[in-house]
């Protein structure tokens, strides 16, 4: 039996069979899903190790696992496992408990199929099915918000799928084959350029690059956090960037214009989305804008077109999935504990859920690109790729570098705000006796946070060597790059010395004293505290920036909203003709009949 087909069919069948288990047997549902994800994970490791594998079915339909799809496959199965682990604690009491696991397993199956498919139509089939499961998963959030968000997502993703099919048809016509691999179509004519754009649109919609990103914040606001952490944060990035990389590396040979499209999209996405994130008051929305912003780095990396940039973009895809998943999961823990993710009302959680705070801190530093965490390594590689572009001529690289590096500083700023408002701000609202955090949820976050450190410090030895390098033919592009392990050693030494010093000092009795906080010698009422949500109002109030924010608040830059407005304007015109007065309709009919007769008669006589 064929391994790839088995791996695709297995989660789908088990997922469907879950419907046979009674809803109340929650433990059994969780166990079955967990074991399925674990098996899929092990299976994907096996496939990754023995790659490249190709298996052909009837009508020349083939499935291939190579370095690129193998990497994405590992990520997909791993994150499914982590999310199922987390959901044991998070989704236990949810109304749609069973449906959630069914849809997760279906998503897993469809993702594996989409990644392995070498035939374009098969890819499109799985891709479409993924849009459906995404719709269903957002829908279980319940309420009108979730329904609207699910509809918006389905329209954006589904619409981009249509473009994808169109692009595929053009490629098929030009290359004469439905295969993805080995096409290498040079972008010479206008038609192939449009085919490229159509492919890229589908990838952008999935990954959430601008201007097709608008479904992500809506989805984050109304879907359960486990779903947001699973799809927009982890899986959709892996899939979208997989498609983008596949299309840039294997399907097309990019020309200058194609590179420029990617670079501009990447740079704009980074800055615009992070500026939006800076001003959010809801933790989930803030994180979702970062899920958009980080896509910019991946697109920028792939857009550079040189090996180190592409490797950086792909590595960033993996890293992003790790830390953004952690961040969403930590937001989930906050919501579970307090019932809200509104930063204006949160605070003081540092005492209540310390383990979650540590995981959130580590992943915040990672996403902000602080050495020695993993986000730094991949961002560094993207910067390197950008500077290499400059070496080969071209003036615009300064802009891309500015966007990437300054975007990183803005990211840090918005996470300082998040950490402060949710965890450090003084508030008495949630100061009840500390309860234990759910161990499955802490375990899931802990594994990911540990990965942030390991992939950062041993970047060269582990992920780059085993996961990223093989995709680009194992070339020695990393010669002489930063050795984060050395810096890790230094930092470890420094922290140890600090620990020793404090230890030695604490030997002296009464050297550490605990006292209440000092605010000019006054005792402030407990109700007066600084939340942190308006840390950056100073920025918001600067002339031009203020105007842009106002526009964004009115959704002027939301493509979906704009399209909706245009359509409703057009239907409004039609609606005005529908007066409900019968003689008016009758005169329209007569008028139409006369017109018709006149046209027909003109040709006959």
């Amino acid at each position, binding site marked *: 039996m064929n391994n790839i087909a088995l791996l695709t069919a297995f989660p789908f069948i088990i997922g469907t069979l879950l419907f046979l288990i009674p809803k109340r047997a929650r433990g059994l549902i969780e166990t079955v899903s967990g074991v399925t994800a674990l098996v899929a994970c092990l299976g994907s490791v096996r496939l990754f190790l023995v790659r490249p594998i190709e298996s052909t079915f009837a009508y020349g339909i083939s499935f291939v696992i190579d370095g690129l799809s193998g990497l994405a496959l590992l990520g997909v199965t791993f994150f499914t496992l982590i999310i199922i682990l987390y959901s044991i604690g998070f989704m236990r009491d949810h109304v749609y408990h069973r449906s959630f696991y069914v849809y997760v397993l279906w998503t897993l199956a469809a993702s594996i199929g989409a990644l392995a498919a070498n035939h374009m139509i098969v890819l499109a089939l799985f891709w479409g099915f993924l849009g459906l499961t995404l719709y269903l998963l957002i829908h279980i959030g319940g309420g009108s918000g979730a329904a609207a968000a699910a509809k918006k997502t389905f329209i954006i993703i589904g619409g981009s799928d249509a473009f994808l099919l169109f692009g595929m048809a053009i490629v098929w016509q030009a290359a004469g084959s439905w295969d993805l691999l080995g096409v290498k179509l040079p972008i010479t004519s206008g038609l192939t350029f449009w085919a490229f754009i159509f492919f890229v649109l589908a990838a952008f919609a999935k990954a959430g690059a601008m201007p097709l990103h608008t479904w992500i914040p809506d989805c984050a606001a109304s879907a359960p956090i486990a779903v947001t952490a699973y799809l927009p944060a982890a899986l959709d990035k892996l899939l979208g960037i997989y498609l983008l990389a596949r299309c840039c590396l294997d399907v097309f040979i990019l020309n200058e214009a194609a590179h420029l499209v990617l670079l501009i999209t990447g740079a704009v996405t980074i800055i615009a989305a992070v500026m939006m994130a800076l001003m959010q008051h809801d933790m989930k929305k803030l994180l979702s804008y970062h899920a958009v912003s980080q896509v910019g780095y991946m697109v920028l990396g792939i857009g550079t077109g040189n090996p180190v940039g592409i490797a950086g973009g792909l590595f960033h895809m993996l890293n992003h999935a790790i830390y953004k998943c952690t961040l969403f999961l930590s937001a989930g823990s906050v919501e579970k504990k307090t019932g809200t993710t509104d930063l204006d009302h949160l605070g003081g959680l*540092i*005492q209540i859920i*310390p383990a979650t*705070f540590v995981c959130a801190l580590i992943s915040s530093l990672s996403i902000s690109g*602080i*050495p020695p965490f993993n986000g730094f390594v991949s961002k*560094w590689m993207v*910067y*390197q790729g950008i*500077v290499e572009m*400059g*070496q080969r001529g071209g*003036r615009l690289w*300064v802009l891309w*570098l*500015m966007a990437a*590096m*300054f975007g990183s*500083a*803005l990211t*840090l*700023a918005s996470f300082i*705000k998040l950490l*402060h408002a949710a965890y*450090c701000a*003084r508030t008495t609202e949630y100061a009840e006796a500390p309860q234990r955090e759910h161990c499955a949820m802490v375990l899931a976050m802990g594994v990911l946070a540990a990965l942030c450190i390991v992939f950062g410090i041993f970047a060269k030895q582990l992920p780059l060597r085993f996961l990223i390098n093989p995709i680009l033919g194992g070339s020695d592009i990393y*010669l*002489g*790059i*930063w050795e984060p392990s050395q810096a890790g*050693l*230094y*930092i470890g*030494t*420094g*922290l140890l010395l*600090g620990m020793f*010093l*404090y230890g030695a*000092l604490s030997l002296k009795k009464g*050297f*550490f*004293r*605990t*006292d*209440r*906080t*000092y*605010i*000019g010698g006054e005792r402030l009422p407990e109700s*007066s*505290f*600084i939340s*942190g949500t308006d*840390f*950056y109002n*100073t*920025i918001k*109030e*600067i002339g031009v920036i203020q105007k842009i924010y106002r526009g964004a608040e009115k959704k002027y830059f939301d493509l979906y909203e704009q399209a909706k407005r245009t359509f409703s304007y057009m239907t409004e015109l039609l609606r005005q003709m529908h007066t409900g007065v019968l003689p008016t309709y009758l005169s329209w009919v007569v008028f139409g009949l006369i017109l018709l007769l006149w046209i027909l008669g003109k040709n006959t006589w």
Partner: protein
Amino acid sequence: MIKGIFYFLIFPGFLFTAAMGCLSGWFDRKLTARIHWRVGPPWYQNFVDFLKLLGKEIIVPADSMRGLFLFAPVTAVIGATLLSVVLWQPNLRTDSGFLGDLIVAIYLSMIPALALIIGGMASRNPLASLGASREMKLMLAYELPFIVSIATVIIKNGYTIRLYEMVQHQAAHGAIIGSPSGFIAFIVALLCMQAKLGLVPFDIAEAETEIMGGPLVEYSGAPLGFFRLSKLMMLFAMPVFLITVFWGGIAPGALGAAVGLGKLLVILLVAVLIKNTNPRLRIDQALRFFWGPVTVLAVISILLTLAGL
């Protein structure tokens, strides 16, 4: 590995940077005192200040996050030390460094400020929160023109982001500061350095007279000493950074070291003079200043560079 630890702890890492930082700090204090028509402290003042702080009681605020509160200052010192190690490799010609160490250096130079922010947040004092938010905004303010001025350096040094090659390139073609565009970029970087070091007029985050030291308000004893030490270390490391990328680096040998010291003193002199002749800005003024005129200046330097000047 032993060699690496030696680099990190003794030379050019912790001990060397700390000692030079204390001396740079003394230069600052002495010069400021002379401008004020005072006598000023003896040369060892910063050393004894640090040692005295180590011997003082450590007060931890009641509902802070203890571990983070105590280790944030340690991280600040580690960050400054790492920055120094990365910067001195090309200057000492001991090691050709690695590709892209320029970017690593930029990011390492952010760590002391970041540690201050996180330490302030962990102390959970409202004044510290205010200070932390100001520090973060200040970081955003100077980071933009700083990156642009660094882009000038990258172009002028023949598109390299390796510090060692930058020093070599300048040795062969003359220091970047010598060209009009390079000089403008240097001025921009100098202003950014002033803000990075938290010197007046950009000491907005600490502002003793407004928010009582901001993030430092709860700190005492050894942790306070570490933060103060990290500031002094940065007072030495940041000028070295500017010298390395803009001003030809520091040549080996006694003569080279003397010239290097001269360059360091010139940069410090400018910084201290700015510090003593300007009142503190408000944070929104600082934001407008850096995103407005300073960024425009940096963009002009880029345009001049691309025009070949």
